[in-house]
């Protein structure tokens, strides 16, 4: 077999940093990402492509909202919940935001314990993250059912511009799908961590390759991205 192309961390440390490092890394006629494994680099590149997908959705929403002659439904009122006889604006969305941020916090700690090879704490924190994620999806299902019961459809709604429903279902639906996939991803990796696959170097069922605790960080990248997208949806769709 050919010699490993893997850089040692020594090589990384001896490379120039800053802009000179940027030029040197990209001009090295080899791999550009010197101290990043292929798994992590590919996750970042996938997330970049996903950024464009969500970017296009939000731009479509912006275009629809800017071009309509009919008033846009006020999200503050549409997403209000009645608690104790008082209308609290956006309260469910605010709770969903806090749930997702908390899941990001537990995920970041899971990555940290993963690199300390503490498999019990890592798995537990990943399961907690998945639980927060599932809670988020559950609350979104509640929100969808409530809006559908109130008459919101992709082609119209009782309060104003017809495009409100289509953009809402499209954007939050796609985001909810991402969260759901993330929960499944988390559960699969948490099971591997719990079983000690990365300590015993057990080979994966699909790739037949040994895994590393780095997969926890890669899963974390995806999960934080889901949270990141929600930050933008929260700002542009719910608050604007």
């Amino acid at each position, binding site marked *: *077999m050919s010699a*490993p192309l*893997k850089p040692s961390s020594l090589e*990384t440390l001896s490379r120039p*940093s*800053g*802009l000179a*490092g*940027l030029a040197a*890394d*990209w001009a090295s006629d080899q791999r*550009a*990402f*010197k*101290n*990043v*494994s292929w798994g*992590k680099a590919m996750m*970042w*590149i996938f*997330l*970049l492509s996903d*950024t*464009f997908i969500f*970017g*296009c959705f939000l*731009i479509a929403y*912006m*275009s629809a909202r*800017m*071009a309509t*002659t009919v008033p846009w439904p006020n999200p*503050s009122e549409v997403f209000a919940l009645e608690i104790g006889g008082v209308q609290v*604006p*956006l309260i469910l969305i*605010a709770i969903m*935001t*806090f749930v997702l*941020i908390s899941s*990001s*916090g537990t*995920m*970041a*700690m899971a*990555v*940290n314990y993963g*690199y300390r090879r503490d498999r019990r704490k890592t798995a537990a924190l990943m399961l907690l993250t998945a639980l927060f994620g599932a809670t988020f999806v559950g609350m979104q299902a509640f929100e969808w059912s409530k809006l559908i019961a109130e008459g919101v459809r992709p082609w119209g709604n009782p309060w104003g511009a017809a495009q409100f429903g289509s953009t809402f279902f499209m954007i939050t639906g796609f985001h909810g799908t991402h969260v759901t996939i993330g929960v499944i991803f988390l559960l699969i990796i948490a099971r591997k961590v719990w079983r000690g696959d990365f300590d015993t170097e057990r080979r994966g069922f699909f790739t037949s390759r*040994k895994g590393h605790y*780095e997969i926890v*960080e890669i899963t*974390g*990248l995806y999960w*934080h991205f889901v*949270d*990141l997208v929600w*930050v933008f949806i*929260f*700002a542009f769709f719910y*608050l*604007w």
Partner: protein
Amino acid sequence: MAPVEAHAEQQHHPIKLYLLVWGLLFVLSTFSYLVDYVGLQGYLRWSLILIFMVLKAGLIVAVFMHMAWERLALIYAILLPPLLVLVFVAMMVSESTYVLLTRLLFFGAAP
């Protein structure tokens, strides 16, 4: 034999840092919710929403996703391309105002 995958530089940071960022994200989210709760309107509302949004996104990418500790080669490869989305936004703002204008001209104030 295939070489054992060398680990990328592992990200070792104190838990305290994550808890701090977690707390900051909670505070910033509360602020952005308060923008709506208090009912601010107009440019003040929009700029506050954008500021809190950018701060939250920056914290998540820099600390939770460890971008702050990566080499510039990766940072620029991932963070520069999304700026092109802003060009698309500018194009669609121009397009949308035109669509609105034609709708008002040809269909009257209400369709």
